[in-house]
Protein backbone atom coordinates (compact mmCIF):
# COMPACT_ATOMS: atom_id res chain seq x y z
CA UNK A 1 0.00 0.00 0.00
CA UNK A 2 2.75 2.49 0.96
CA UNK A 3 4.67 1.50 -2.10
CA UNK A 4 1.57 2.08 -4.18
CA UNK A 5 1.08 5.56 -2.75
CA UNK A 6 4.73 6.42 -3.35
CA UNK A 7 4.45 5.19 -6.92
CA UNK A 8 1.36 7.30 -7.48
CA UNK A 9 3.09 10.37 -6.04
CA UNK A 10 6.04 9.88 -8.39
CA UNK A 11 3.62 9.57 -11.28
CA UNK A 12 2.46 13.09 -10.48
CA UNK A 13 5.71 14.51 -11.85
CA UNK A 14 5.20 13.61 -15.53
CA UNK A 15 1.50 14.51 -15.24
CA UNK A 16 2.29 17.98 -13.95
CA UNK A 17 5.04 18.55 -16.52
CA UNK A 18 2.61 17.50 -19.24
CA UNK A 19 -0.07 19.85 -17.97
CA UNK A 20 2.46 22.67 -17.78
CA UNK A 21 3.56 22.03 -21.32
CA UNK A 22 0.04 22.22 -22.67
CA UNK A 23 -0.97 25.35 -20.81
CA UNK A 24 2.37 26.98 -21.50
CA UNK A 25 2.03 26.31 -25.21
CA UNK A 26 -1.48 27.71 -25.22
CA UNK A 27 -0.47 30.97 -23.59
CA UNK A 28 2.56 31.14 -25.89
CA UNK A 29 0.58 30.88 -29.10
CA UNK A 30 -2.28 33.18 -28.11
CA UNK A 31 -1.75 36.53 -29.79
CA UNK A 32 -1.20 39.76 -27.89
CA UNK A 33 1.73 41.09 -25.94
CA UNK A 34 1.44 40.95 -22.16
CA UNK A 35 3.88 43.83 -21.74
CA UNK A 36 1.80 46.07 -23.97
CA UNK A 37 -1.38 45.05 -22.17
CA UNK A 38 0.18 45.78 -18.82
CA UNK A 39 1.64 49.16 -19.67
CA UNK A 40 -1.07 50.22 -22.07
CA UNK A 41 -1.10 50.90 -25.83
CA UNK A 42 0.22 54.41 -25.35
CA UNK A 43 3.31 53.46 -23.34
CA UNK A 44 6.68 54.30 -24.92
CA UNK A 45 8.18 51.53 -27.01
CA UNK A 46 11.35 51.46 -24.90
CA UNK A 47 9.42 50.81 -21.71
CA UNK A 48 7.55 47.94 -23.35
CA UNK A 49 10.77 46.52 -24.73
CA UNK A 50 12.38 46.77 -21.29
CA UNK A 51 9.49 44.91 -19.72
CA UNK A 52 9.66 42.23 -22.45
CA UNK A 53 13.31 41.79 -21.60
CA UNK A 54 12.62 41.58 -17.89
CA UNK A 55 9.92 38.95 -18.33
CA UNK A 56 12.02 37.06 -20.84
CA UNK A 57 9.32 37.19 -23.48
CA UNK A 58 11.81 37.33 -26.33
CA UNK A 59 13.56 34.08 -25.43
CA UNK A 60 12.81 30.97 -27.50
CA UNK A 61 9.84 28.85 -26.38
CA UNK A 62 11.85 25.89 -25.18
CA UNK A 63 14.10 28.00 -22.99
CA UNK A 64 11.13 29.75 -21.42
CA UNK A 65 9.44 26.44 -20.80
CA UNK A 66 12.44 24.78 -19.19
CA UNK A 67 13.03 27.87 -17.07
CA UNK A 68 9.44 27.81 -15.96
CA UNK A 69 9.49 24.13 -15.02
CA UNK A 70 12.78 24.54 -13.17
CA UNK A 71 11.36 27.48 -11.22
CA UNK A 72 8.11 25.67 -10.54
CA UNK A 73 10.04 22.73 -9.12
CA UNK A 74 11.40 25.19 -6.56
CA UNK A 75 7.83 26.36 -5.88
CA UNK A 76 8.42 29.59 -7.74
CA UNK A 77 5.63 30.27 -10.19
CA UNK A 78 6.85 33.71 -11.21
CA UNK A 79 5.27 37.09 -10.58
CA UNK A 80 1.89 38.30 -11.69
CA UNK A 81 1.93 40.87 -14.45
CA UNK A 82 -0.67 42.94 -12.67
CA UNK A 83 0.66 43.28 -9.13
CA UNK A 84 4.23 42.01 -9.49
CA UNK A 85 3.70 39.83 -6.47
CA UNK A 86 4.66 36.14 -6.51
CA UNK A 87 1.96 34.03 -8.15
CA UNK A 88 2.40 31.34 -5.51
CA UNK A 89 1.60 33.82 -2.78
CA UNK A 90 -1.42 35.17 -4.62
CA UNK A 91 -2.80 31.66 -5.07
CA UNK A 92 -2.11 30.58 -1.51
CA UNK A 93 -3.85 33.60 -0.04
CA UNK A 94 -6.97 32.76 -2.05
CA UNK A 95 -6.86 29.01 -1.62
CA UNK A 96 -8.27 28.83 1.96
CA UNK A 97 -11.56 30.42 0.91
CA UNK A 98 -11.86 28.13 -2.11
CA UNK A 99 -10.95 25.08 -0.03
CA UNK A 100 -13.43 25.98 2.65
CA UNK A 101 -16.19 26.57 0.13
CA UNK A 102 -15.41 23.29 -1.63
CA UNK A 103 -15.37 21.33 1.62
CA UNK A 104 -18.63 22.87 2.78
CA UNK A 105 -20.32 22.22 -0.55
CA UNK A 106 -19.00 18.68 -0.39
CA UNK A 107 -20.35 18.18 3.12
CA UNK A 108 -23.80 19.34 2.10
CA UNK A 109 -23.81 17.11 -0.96
CA UNK A 110 -22.54 14.02 0.88
CA UNK A 111 -24.42 14.39 4.15
CA UNK A 112 -27.72 14.96 2.35
CA UNK A 113 -27.14 13.17 -0.93
CA UNK A 114 -26.10 9.75 0.37
CA UNK A 115 -28.89 9.30 2.95
CA UNK A 116 -31.53 10.56 0.51
CA UNK A 117 -30.20 8.25 -2.18
CA UNK A 118 -30.19 5.25 0.14
CA UNK A 119 -33.73 5.90 1.35
CA UNK A 120 -34.86 6.40 -2.24
CA UNK A 121 -33.37 3.05 -3.20
CA UNK A 122 -34.85 1.11 -0.31
CA UNK A 123 -38.25 2.60 -1.03
CA UNK A 124 -38.02 2.44 -4.80
CA UNK A 125 -40.98 4.01 -6.65
CA UNK A 126 -42.52 5.23 -3.39
CA UNK A 127 -43.78 8.78 -2.97
CA UNK A 128 -40.52 9.68 -1.23
CA UNK A 129 -38.47 8.23 -4.07
CA UNK A 130 -40.47 10.09 -6.70
CA UNK A 131 -40.28 13.38 -4.83
CA UNK A 132 -36.55 12.96 -4.31
CA UNK A 133 -36.15 12.21 -8.01
CA UNK A 134 -38.10 15.32 -8.99
CA UNK A 135 -36.21 17.59 -6.60
CA UNK A 136 -32.94 16.01 -7.62
CA UNK A 137 -33.70 16.77 -11.24
CA UNK A 138 -34.64 20.33 -10.38
CA UNK A 139 -31.47 20.92 -8.39
CA UNK A 140 -29.27 19.45 -11.11
CA UNK A 141 -30.97 21.57 -13.75
CA UNK A 142 -30.97 24.90 -11.92
CA UNK A 143 -27.89 26.88 -12.98
CA UNK A 144 -25.67 27.74 -10.06
CA UNK A 145 -25.63 31.46 -10.69
CA UNK A 146 -29.42 31.66 -10.86
CA UNK A 147 -29.88 29.68 -7.66
CA UNK A 148 -27.28 31.87 -5.96
CA UNK A 149 -28.97 35.07 -7.03
CA UNK A 150 -32.41 33.82 -6.04
CA UNK A 151 -31.09 32.83 -2.63
CA UNK A 152 -29.61 36.29 -2.23
CA UNK A 153 -32.85 37.94 -3.29
CA UNK A 154 -34.89 35.81 -0.91
CA UNK A 155 -32.73 35.44 2.17
CA UNK A 156 -30.71 38.65 2.02
CA UNK A 157 -32.82 41.24 0.26
CA UNK A 158 -36.36 40.18 1.23
CA UNK A 159 -35.90 38.48 4.58
CA UNK A 160 -32.64 40.12 5.55
CA UNK A 161 -31.54 36.98 7.40
CA UNK A 162 -28.21 36.36 5.77
CA UNK A 163 -25.51 38.64 4.32
CA UNK A 164 -25.49 38.71 0.50
CA UNK A 165 -21.73 38.58 0.03
CA UNK A 166 -18.36 37.98 1.62
CA UNK A 167 -16.99 34.83 3.16
CA UNK A 168 -15.56 35.69 6.56
CA UNK A 169 -18.24 34.96 9.14
CA UNK A 170 -20.28 31.76 9.48
CA UNK A 171 -23.42 33.60 8.44
CA UNK A 172 -21.70 34.45 5.18
CA UNK A 173 -20.83 30.79 4.57
CA UNK A 174 -24.37 29.49 4.42
CA UNK A 175 -25.64 30.82 1.09
CA UNK A 176 -22.50 30.08 -0.98
CA UNK A 177 -22.13 26.60 0.51
CA UNK A 178 -25.77 25.85 -0.15
CA UNK A 179 -25.59 27.25 -3.70
CA UNK A 180 -22.61 25.07 -4.44
CA UNK A 181 -23.80 22.00 -2.52
CA UNK A 182 -27.32 21.46 -3.84
CA UNK A 183 -26.40 20.66 -7.42
CA UNK A 184 -23.73 18.24 -6.24
CA UNK A 185 -26.13 16.80 -3.68
CA UNK A 186 -28.54 15.83 -6.43
CA UNK A 187 -25.75 14.11 -8.34
CA UNK A 188 -24.59 12.23 -5.24
CA UNK A 189 -28.16 11.28 -4.43
CA UNK A 190 -28.88 9.82 -7.86
CA UNK A 191 -25.56 8.00 -7.82
CA UNK A 192 -26.18 6.54 -4.35
CA UNK A 193 -29.67 5.50 -5.36
CA UNK A 194 -28.68 3.58 -8.47
CA UNK A 195 -25.68 2.01 -6.80
CA UNK A 196 -27.76 0.92 -3.82
CA UNK A 197 -30.47 -0.50 -6.06
CA UNK A 198 -27.89 -2.74 -7.62
CA UNK A 199 -26.34 -3.85 -4.34
CA UNK A 200 -29.59 -4.41 -2.48
CA UNK A 201 -30.47 -7.21 -4.90
CA UNK A 202 -27.22 -9.06 -4.32
CA UNK A 203 -27.17 -12.51 -2.76
CA UNK A 204 -25.07 -11.41 0.20
CA UNK A 205 -27.79 -8.96 1.22
CA UNK A 206 -30.20 -11.91 1.31
CA UNK A 207 -27.62 -13.78 3.37
CA UNK A 208 -27.50 -10.91 5.86
CA UNK A 209 -31.27 -10.96 6.13
CA UNK A 210 -31.27 -14.73 6.54
CA UNK A 211 -28.96 -14.29 9.52
CA UNK A 212 -31.78 -12.41 11.25
CA UNK A 213 -30.09 -9.06 10.86
CA UNK A 214 -32.19 -5.93 11.23
CA UNK A 215 -33.15 -4.26 7.96
CA UNK A 216 -31.52 -0.99 9.05
CA UNK A 217 -28.17 -2.74 9.59
CA UNK A 218 -28.57 -4.65 6.34
CA UNK A 219 -29.07 -1.40 4.44
CA UNK A 220 -26.73 1.01 6.20
CA UNK A 221 -23.95 -1.41 6.94
CA UNK A 222 -23.94 -4.36 4.56
CA UNK A 223 -25.33 -2.64 1.49
CA UNK A 224 -24.06 0.91 1.77
CA UNK A 225 -20.41 0.03 2.09
CA UNK A 226 -20.63 -2.02 -1.07
CA UNK A 227 -22.53 0.73 -2.86
CA UNK A 228 -20.14 3.54 -1.97
CA UNK A 229 -17.44 2.99 -4.60
CA UNK A 230 -19.16 4.76 -7.51
CA UNK A 231 -20.39 7.44 -5.12
CA UNK A 232 -16.87 8.10 -3.86
CA UNK A 233 -15.69 8.36 -7.46
CA UNK A 234 -18.29 11.01 -8.25
CA UNK A 235 -17.68 12.90 -5.04
CA UNK A 236 -13.92 12.87 -5.63
CA UNK A 237 -14.27 14.21 -9.16
CA UNK A 238 -16.56 16.97 -7.95
CA UNK A 239 -14.23 17.89 -5.14
CA UNK A 240 -11.32 18.11 -7.53
CA UNK A 241 -13.27 20.49 -9.74
CA UNK A 242 -14.40 22.56 -6.77
CA UNK A 243 -10.83 22.99 -5.59
CA UNK A 244 -10.15 24.75 -8.87
CA UNK A 245 -12.64 27.29 -7.69
CA UNK A 246 -16.35 27.54 -8.16
CA UNK A 247 -16.16 30.52 -10.48
CA UNK A 248 -19.82 31.46 -10.55
CA UNK A 249 -20.45 31.00 -6.84
CA UNK A 250 -17.33 32.94 -5.96
CA UNK A 251 -18.32 35.72 -8.31
CA UNK A 252 -21.92 36.03 -7.11
CA UNK A 253 -20.94 36.17 -3.46
CA UNK A 254 -17.76 38.22 -4.03
CA UNK A 255 -15.60 35.55 -2.50
CA UNK A 256 -11.92 36.11 -3.09
CA UNK A 257 -11.16 32.57 -4.22
CA UNK A 258 -9.08 30.88 -6.86
CA UNK A 259 -11.84 30.57 -9.43
CA UNK A 260 -12.59 34.26 -9.49
CA UNK A 261 -8.87 35.11 -9.49
CA UNK A 262 -8.28 32.84 -12.47
CA UNK A 263 -11.10 34.37 -14.48
CA UNK A 264 -9.84 37.88 -13.77
CA UNK A 265 -6.35 36.84 -14.82
CA UNK A 266 -7.59 35.23 -18.01
CA UNK A 267 -9.40 38.44 -18.88
CA UNK A 268 -6.26 40.50 -18.35
CA UNK A 269 -3.99 37.90 -20.01
CA UNK A 270 -1.93 37.53 -16.84
CA UNK A 271 -0.07 34.50 -18.14
CA UNK A 272 1.96 33.62 -15.03
CA UNK A 273 -1.24 33.44 -13.01
CA UNK A 274 -3.00 31.34 -15.63
CA UNK A 275 -0.07 28.94 -15.86
CA UNK A 276 0.41 28.77 -12.13
CA UNK A 277 -3.29 28.45 -11.46
CA UNK A 278 -3.76 25.60 -13.89
CA UNK A 279 -0.73 23.86 -12.49
CA UNK A 280 -2.11 24.27 -9.00
CA UNK A 281 -5.49 22.99 -10.14
CA UNK A 282 -3.88 19.95 -11.78
CA UNK A 283 -1.97 19.24 -8.61
CA UNK A 284 -4.99 19.45 -6.34
CA UNK A 285 -7.01 17.36 -8.76
CA UNK A 286 -4.34 14.66 -8.81
CA UNK A 287 -4.01 14.66 -5.04
CA UNK A 288 -7.78 14.31 -4.61
CA UNK A 289 -7.76 11.46 -7.11
CA UNK A 290 -5.04 9.74 -5.18
CA UNK A 291 -7.06 10.24 -2.01
CA UNK A 292 -10.08 8.66 -3.71
CA UNK A 293 -8.01 5.68 -4.80
CA UNK A 294 -6.69 5.23 -1.28
CA UNK A 295 -10.24 5.44 0.04
CA UNK A 296 -11.25 2.67 -2.37
CA UNK A 297 -8.76 0.38 -0.71
CA UNK A 298 -10.36 0.96 2.66
CA UNK A 299 -13.83 0.43 1.27
CA UNK A 300 -13.12 -2.68 -0.75
CA UNK A 301 -10.47 -5.26 0.14
CA UNK A 302 -10.59 -6.60 -3.43
CA UNK A 303 -9.26 -3.29 -4.70
CA UNK A 304 -6.69 -3.12 -1.92
CA UNK A 305 -5.21 -6.44 -3.00
CA UNK A 306 -4.65 -5.01 -6.47
CA UNK A 307 -2.59 -2.09 -5.19
CA UNK A 308 1.00 -3.12 -5.46
Amino acid sequence: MHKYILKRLLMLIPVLIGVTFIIFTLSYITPGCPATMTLGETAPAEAIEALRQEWGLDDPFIIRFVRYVADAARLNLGETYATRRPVMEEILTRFPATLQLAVMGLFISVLLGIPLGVISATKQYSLFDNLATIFGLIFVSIPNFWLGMMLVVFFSVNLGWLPPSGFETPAQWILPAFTLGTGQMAVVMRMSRSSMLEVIRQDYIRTARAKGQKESVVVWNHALRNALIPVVTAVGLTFGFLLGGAVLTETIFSINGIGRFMVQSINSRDNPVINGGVLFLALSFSVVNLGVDILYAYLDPRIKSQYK
Partner: protein
Amino acid sequence: MTESNNMLEIKGLTIHYVTDDGVVRAVNDLNIAIGRGESIGLVGETGAGKTTTALGILKLVPNPPGKIIDGEIFLDGEDIIKKSEPEMRKIRGNKVSMIFQDPMTSLNPVMTVRDQIAEVILLHEKMPAAKALEKAEEMLMKVGIMPDRAKDYPHQFSGGMRQRVVIAIALACSPELLIADEPTTALDVTIQAQVLELMKNLKEEFNTSMIMITHDLGIVAEICDKVAVMYAGSVVEYADKLELFKNPKHPYTIGLFNSIPDIGNDVESLKPIKGLMPDPMNLPTGCPFHPRCDKAKPECSEKIPAGYDIGNNHIVKCILFNQ
Protein backbone atom coordinates in the same frame (compact mmCIF):
# COMPACT_ATOMS: atom_id res chain seq x y z
CA MET B 1 -48.62 -37.26 12.32
CA THR B 2 -49.49 -34.40 14.62
CA GLU B 3 -48.06 -30.94 14.39
CA SER B 4 -46.09 -31.16 17.60
CA ASN B 5 -44.09 -34.12 16.29
CA ASN B 6 -42.92 -32.25 13.26
CA MET B 7 -40.16 -29.72 13.06
CA LEU B 8 -41.87 -28.10 10.14
CA GLU B 9 -45.24 -28.55 8.56
CA ILE B 10 -46.34 -26.55 5.56
CA LYS B 11 -49.99 -26.59 4.61
CA GLY B 12 -51.44 -25.16 1.43
CA LEU B 13 -48.62 -22.67 0.91
CA THR B 14 -49.23 -20.38 -2.06
CA ILE B 15 -46.75 -17.72 -3.11
CA HIS B 16 -47.26 -15.40 -6.06
CA TYR B 17 -45.06 -12.81 -7.68
CA VAL B 18 -47.17 -9.94 -8.93
CA THR B 19 -45.43 -8.31 -11.88
CA ASP B 20 -46.49 -5.83 -14.53
CA ASP B 21 -46.75 -8.65 -17.04
CA GLY B 22 -48.97 -10.82 -14.87
CA VAL B 23 -49.07 -12.98 -11.79
CA VAL B 24 -46.34 -15.57 -11.50
CA ARG B 25 -47.74 -18.49 -9.56
CA ALA B 26 -44.47 -19.73 -8.11
CA VAL B 27 -45.78 -21.95 -5.31
CA ASN B 28 -49.27 -23.45 -5.39
CA ASP B 29 -50.95 -25.25 -2.53
CA LEU B 30 -47.76 -26.86 -1.30
CA ASN B 31 -47.83 -29.37 1.54
CA ILE B 32 -44.77 -30.78 3.28
CA ALA B 33 -43.90 -32.13 6.71
CA ILE B 34 -40.46 -32.65 8.18
CA GLY B 35 -39.80 -34.52 11.40
CA ARG B 36 -37.07 -33.70 13.88
CA GLY B 37 -33.61 -34.67 12.73
CA GLU B 38 -35.10 -35.75 9.43
CA SER B 39 -33.87 -34.60 6.09
CA ILE B 40 -36.05 -34.17 3.12
CA GLY B 41 -35.01 -33.65 -0.47
CA LEU B 42 -36.94 -31.07 -2.44
CA VAL B 43 -36.42 -32.14 -6.03
CA GLY B 44 -37.51 -30.46 -9.21
CA GLU B 45 -36.49 -28.63 -12.31
CA THR B 46 -35.36 -25.02 -12.38
CA GLY B 47 -38.42 -22.85 -11.89
CA ALA B 48 -40.41 -25.44 -9.97
CA GLY B 49 -40.64 -23.09 -7.01
CA LYS B 50 -38.09 -24.76 -4.76
CA THR B 51 -36.16 -21.64 -3.80
CA THR B 52 -39.33 -19.59 -3.38
CA THR B 53 -40.63 -22.25 -0.99
CA ALA B 54 -37.41 -22.04 1.00
CA LEU B 55 -37.51 -18.25 1.15
CA GLY B 56 -41.17 -18.54 2.16
CA ILE B 57 -40.18 -20.58 5.22
CA LEU B 58 -37.93 -17.71 6.31
CA LYS B 59 -40.49 -15.15 5.17
CA LEU B 60 -37.80 -13.65 2.95
CA VAL B 61 -39.66 -13.79 -0.35
CA PRO B 62 -38.73 -10.45 -1.91
CA ASN B 63 -41.77 -8.24 -1.47
CA PRO B 64 -42.64 -6.61 -3.81
CA PRO B 65 -43.14 -8.47 -6.11
CA GLY B 66 -43.50 -11.68 -4.07
CA LYS B 67 -46.29 -12.32 -1.63
CA ILE B 68 -47.38 -15.26 0.47
CA ILE B 69 -51.00 -15.50 -0.61
CA ASP B 70 -52.22 -18.36 1.48
CA GLY B 71 -51.20 -21.27 3.65
CA GLU B 72 -49.73 -22.05 7.03
CA ILE B 73 -46.15 -22.79 7.97
CA PHE B 74 -45.89 -24.47 11.36
CA LEU B 75 -42.44 -24.33 12.83
CA ASP B 76 -42.35 -26.29 16.05
CA GLY B 77 -46.15 -26.08 16.12
CA GLU B 78 -46.27 -22.30 15.74
CA ASP B 79 -47.58 -20.68 12.59
CA ILE B 80 -44.82 -18.35 11.43
CA ILE B 81 -47.02 -16.69 8.81
CA LYS B 82 -48.63 -14.86 11.71
CA LYS B 83 -45.33 -13.83 13.24
CA SER B 84 -44.13 -10.24 13.15
CA GLU B 85 -40.90 -9.16 11.52
CA PRO B 86 -38.99 -8.81 14.84
CA GLU B 87 -40.14 -12.31 15.82
CA MET B 88 -39.00 -13.64 12.46
CA ARG B 89 -35.57 -12.05 12.93
CA LYS B 90 -35.13 -14.12 16.06
CA ILE B 91 -35.88 -17.26 14.05
CA ARG B 92 -33.71 -16.51 11.03
CA GLY B 93 -30.15 -17.64 11.39
CA ASN B 94 -30.99 -19.11 14.78
CA LYS B 95 -33.75 -21.71 14.66
CA VAL B 96 -33.89 -21.86 10.89
CA SER B 97 -30.95 -21.04 8.71
CA MET B 98 -30.25 -21.29 5.05
CA ILE B 99 -27.35 -22.16 2.80
CA PHE B 100 -27.59 -20.42 -0.52
CA GLN B 101 -26.94 -21.72 -3.96
CA ASP B 102 -24.06 -19.63 -5.17
CA PRO B 103 -21.16 -19.31 -2.72
CA MET B 104 -19.42 -16.84 -5.03
CA THR B 105 -22.08 -14.20 -4.38
CA SER B 106 -23.51 -15.19 -1.00
CA LEU B 107 -20.80 -13.58 1.11
CA ASN B 108 -20.35 -9.88 1.67
CA PRO B 109 -17.17 -8.97 -0.25
CA VAL B 110 -16.11 -6.22 2.15
CA MET B 111 -16.27 -8.18 5.41
CA THR B 112 -13.80 -10.76 6.65
CA VAL B 113 -15.24 -14.26 6.82
CA ARG B 114 -14.75 -14.31 10.58
CA ASP B 115 -16.80 -11.14 11.00
CA GLN B 116 -19.54 -12.58 8.85
CA ILE B 117 -19.79 -15.67 11.04
CA ALA B 118 -19.48 -13.66 14.25
CA GLU B 119 -22.31 -11.41 13.08
CA VAL B 120 -24.88 -14.19 13.23
CA ILE B 121 -23.54 -15.40 16.59
CA LEU B 122 -23.79 -11.92 18.10
CA LEU B 123 -27.31 -11.55 16.82
CA HIS B 124 -28.62 -14.64 18.54
CA GLU B 125 -26.35 -15.42 21.43
CA LYS B 126 -25.52 -13.12 24.29
CA MET B 127 -21.76 -12.94 24.46
CA PRO B 128 -19.04 -10.33 24.18
CA ALA B 129 -17.73 -9.59 20.70
CA ALA B 130 -14.33 -11.15 21.39
CA LYS B 131 -15.99 -14.41 22.42
CA ALA B 132 -18.11 -14.39 19.25
CA LEU B 133 -14.97 -13.99 17.14
CA GLU B 134 -13.45 -16.95 18.94
CA LYS B 135 -16.54 -19.02 18.30
CA ALA B 136 -16.47 -17.93 14.66
CA GLU B 137 -12.96 -19.34 14.39
CA GLU B 138 -14.13 -22.58 15.99
CA MET B 139 -16.86 -22.80 13.38
CA LEU B 140 -14.28 -22.27 10.65
CA MET B 141 -12.27 -25.14 12.09
CA LYS B 142 -15.38 -27.31 12.04
CA VAL B 143 -15.86 -26.75 8.35
CA GLY B 144 -12.18 -27.36 7.71
CA ILE B 145 -10.77 -23.86 7.37
CA MET B 146 -7.68 -23.03 9.39
CA PRO B 147 -8.12 -20.08 11.79
CA ASP B 148 -5.20 -18.26 10.20
CA ARG B 149 -7.51 -17.60 7.26
CA ALA B 150 -10.19 -16.11 9.50
CA LYS B 151 -9.28 -12.52 8.73
CA ASP B 152 -9.29 -13.09 5.00
CA TYR B 153 -11.97 -11.74 2.71
CA PRO B 154 -14.27 -13.86 0.56
CA HIS B 155 -12.38 -13.07 -2.65
CA GLN B 156 -9.32 -14.77 -1.20
CA PHE B 157 -11.16 -18.12 -1.05
CA SER B 158 -12.11 -20.65 -3.71
CA GLY B 159 -15.75 -21.52 -4.38
CA GLY B 160 -15.63 -24.67 -2.25
CA MET B 161 -14.01 -22.79 0.63
CA ARG B 162 -16.58 -20.05 0.41
CA GLN B 163 -19.38 -22.58 0.56
CA ARG B 164 -17.76 -23.92 3.73
CA VAL B 165 -17.89 -20.42 5.15
CA VAL B 166 -21.56 -20.16 4.18
CA ILE B 167 -22.17 -23.48 5.92
CA ALA B 168 -20.31 -22.23 8.99
CA ILE B 169 -22.57 -19.16 9.08
CA ALA B 170 -25.67 -21.33 8.72
CA LEU B 171 -24.65 -23.72 11.48
CA ALA B 172 -23.09 -21.19 13.86
CA CYS B 173 -26.18 -20.94 16.06
CA SER B 174 -27.00 -24.67 15.90
CA PRO B 175 -30.24 -24.30 13.96
CA GLU B 176 -33.00 -26.84 14.36
CA LEU B 177 -33.83 -26.61 10.69
CA LEU B 178 -31.34 -26.10 7.92
CA ILE B 179 -32.47 -25.22 4.42
CA ALA B 180 -29.82 -25.97 1.85
CA ASP B 181 -30.64 -24.46 -1.53
CA GLU B 182 -28.63 -26.40 -4.10
CA PRO B 183 -25.51 -26.05 -1.97
CA THR B 184 -23.29 -27.91 -4.39
CA THR B 185 -24.63 -26.85 -7.78
CA ALA B 186 -21.96 -24.19 -8.29
CA LEU B 187 -19.10 -26.46 -7.21
CA ASP B 188 -16.81 -28.95 -8.93
CA VAL B 189 -17.74 -32.59 -8.51
CA THR B 190 -14.83 -33.40 -6.20
CA ILE B 191 -15.63 -30.40 -4.03
CA GLN B 192 -19.33 -31.35 -4.14
CA ALA B 193 -18.56 -34.65 -2.48
CA GLN B 194 -16.51 -32.95 0.24
CA VAL B 195 -19.17 -30.38 0.95
CA LEU B 196 -21.93 -33.00 1.06
CA GLU B 197 -19.88 -35.16 3.42
CA LEU B 198 -19.26 -32.13 5.60
CA MET B 199 -22.95 -31.25 5.71
CA LYS B 200 -23.89 -34.81 6.51
CA ASN B 201 -21.48 -34.94 9.44
CA LEU B 202 -22.44 -31.55 10.80
CA LYS B 203 -26.10 -32.37 10.47
CA GLU B 204 -25.55 -35.45 12.61
CA GLU B 205 -23.43 -33.54 15.09
CA PHE B 206 -26.05 -30.83 15.57
CA ASN B 207 -29.05 -33.14 15.05
CA THR B 208 -30.50 -30.71 12.57
CA SER B 209 -33.54 -31.25 10.40
CA MET B 210 -32.77 -30.43 6.83
CA ILE B 211 -34.46 -29.44 3.63
CA MET B 212 -32.12 -30.23 0.77
CA ILE B 213 -33.17 -28.41 -2.36
CA THR B 214 -31.64 -29.96 -5.43
CA HIS B 215 -32.27 -31.14 -8.93
CA ASP B 216 -29.73 -33.90 -8.46
CA LEU B 217 -31.30 -37.21 -7.51
CA GLY B 218 -27.84 -38.51 -6.62
CA ILE B 219 -27.56 -36.02 -3.77
CA VAL B 220 -30.99 -37.06 -2.56
CA ALA B 221 -29.92 -40.69 -2.51
CA GLU B 222 -26.82 -39.70 -0.57
CA ILE B 223 -28.27 -37.47 2.12
CA CYS B 224 -32.05 -37.51 2.45
CA ASP B 225 -34.55 -39.60 4.36
CA LYS B 226 -37.56 -38.43 2.41
CA VAL B 227 -38.15 -36.93 -0.97
CA ALA B 228 -40.68 -34.43 -2.21
CA VAL B 229 -40.81 -34.01 -5.97
CA MET B 230 -41.91 -30.53 -7.00
CA TYR B 231 -43.51 -29.56 -10.26
CA ALA B 232 -44.90 -26.14 -11.16
CA GLY B 233 -45.02 -24.95 -7.59
CA SER B 234 -46.48 -27.94 -5.81
CA VAL B 235 -45.33 -31.29 -4.48
CA VAL B 236 -46.50 -33.97 -6.89
CA GLU B 237 -45.01 -36.93 -5.08
CA TYR B 238 -43.79 -37.43 -1.55
CA ALA B 239 -42.38 -40.59 -0.01
CA ASP B 240 -39.51 -42.14 1.89
CA LYS B 241 -36.35 -42.11 -0.15
CA LEU B 242 -36.16 -45.88 -0.71
CA GLU B 243 -39.85 -46.14 -1.47
CA LEU B 244 -39.63 -43.36 -4.02
CA PHE B 245 -36.50 -44.65 -5.71
CA LYS B 246 -37.85 -48.21 -5.92
CA ASN B 247 -41.41 -47.39 -6.60
CA PRO B 248 -41.92 -44.00 -8.27
CA LYS B 249 -45.57 -43.47 -9.13
CA HIS B 250 -46.20 -40.01 -10.49
CA PRO B 251 -45.65 -39.83 -14.23
CA TYR B 252 -43.39 -36.82 -13.72
CA THR B 253 -41.22 -38.65 -11.19
CA ILE B 254 -40.97 -41.63 -13.53
CA GLY B 255 -40.01 -39.23 -16.28
CA LEU B 256 -37.29 -37.77 -14.07
CA PHE B 257 -35.78 -41.17 -13.38
CA ASN B 258 -35.90 -42.05 -17.07
CA SER B 259 -33.93 -38.92 -17.83
CA ILE B 260 -30.93 -40.07 -15.81
CA PRO B 261 -28.21 -41.87 -17.76
CA ASP B 262 -27.51 -45.29 -16.26
CA ILE B 263 -24.17 -46.88 -16.95
CA GLY B 264 -25.37 -50.39 -16.10
CA ASN B 265 -28.30 -50.23 -18.43
CA ASP B 266 -27.39 -49.92 -22.06
CA VAL B 267 -30.04 -47.91 -23.81
CA GLU B 268 -30.07 -46.39 -27.26
CA SER B 269 -31.21 -43.01 -26.03
CA LEU B 270 -32.45 -41.38 -22.85
CA LYS B 271 -36.13 -40.79 -22.52
CA PRO B 272 -36.51 -37.12 -21.71
CA ILE B 273 -39.87 -35.77 -20.63
CA LYS B 274 -41.39 -34.24 -23.71
CA GLY B 275 -42.17 -30.55 -23.73
CA LEU B 276 -41.12 -27.86 -21.28
CA MET B 277 -42.02 -26.82 -17.78
CA PRO B 278 -45.11 -24.59 -18.08
CA ASP B 279 -44.78 -20.86 -17.73
CA PRO B 280 -45.78 -20.16 -14.12
CA MET B 281 -47.51 -17.03 -15.31
CA ASN B 282 -49.74 -19.14 -17.46
CA LEU B 283 -50.18 -22.54 -15.82
CA PRO B 284 -52.36 -25.09 -17.60
CA THR B 285 -55.74 -25.82 -16.06
CA GLY B 286 -56.15 -28.96 -14.00
CA CYS B 287 -53.01 -30.97 -13.30
CA PRO B 288 -50.12 -28.72 -14.38
CA PHE B 289 -48.27 -31.75 -15.76
CA HIS B 290 -51.03 -33.05 -18.01
CA PRO B 291 -49.83 -31.44 -21.28
CA ARG B 292 -46.58 -33.41 -20.96
CA CYS B 293 -48.05 -36.56 -19.45
CA ASP B 294 -48.21 -39.85 -21.40
CA LYS B 295 -51.05 -41.12 -19.27
CA ALA B 296 -53.15 -37.97 -19.30
CA LYS B 297 -56.90 -38.45 -19.42
CA PRO B 298 -59.49 -35.88 -20.42
CA GLU B 299 -60.37 -35.10 -16.78
CA CYS B 300 -56.72 -34.23 -16.02
CA SER B 301 -57.19 -30.86 -17.67
CA GLU B 302 -60.28 -30.11 -15.64
CA LYS B 303 -59.42 -30.60 -12.01
CA ILE B 304 -56.26 -30.18 -9.93
CA PRO B 305 -55.75 -33.62 -8.39
CA ALA B 306 -55.58 -34.04 -4.64
CA GLY B 307 -52.71 -35.87 -2.97
CA TYR B 308 -53.57 -39.57 -2.66
CA ASP B 309 -51.92 -41.68 -0.01
CA ILE B 310 -51.11 -45.03 -1.58
CA GLY B 311 -49.72 -46.52 1.61
CA ASN B 312 -46.32 -46.36 3.33
CA ASN B 313 -46.86 -42.62 3.69
CA HIS B 314 -46.37 -42.36 -0.05
CA ILE B 315 -48.43 -39.52 -1.46
CA VAL B 316 -49.02 -38.98 -5.16
CA LYS B 317 -50.81 -36.01 -6.63
CA CYS B 318 -52.30 -37.72 -9.66
CA ILE B 319 -55.85 -38.91 -10.39
CA LEU B 320 -54.52 -42.27 -11.60
CA PHE B 321 -54.18 -43.14 -7.92
CA ASN B 322 -57.64 -42.06 -6.87
CA GLN B 323 -59.07 -45.29 -5.53
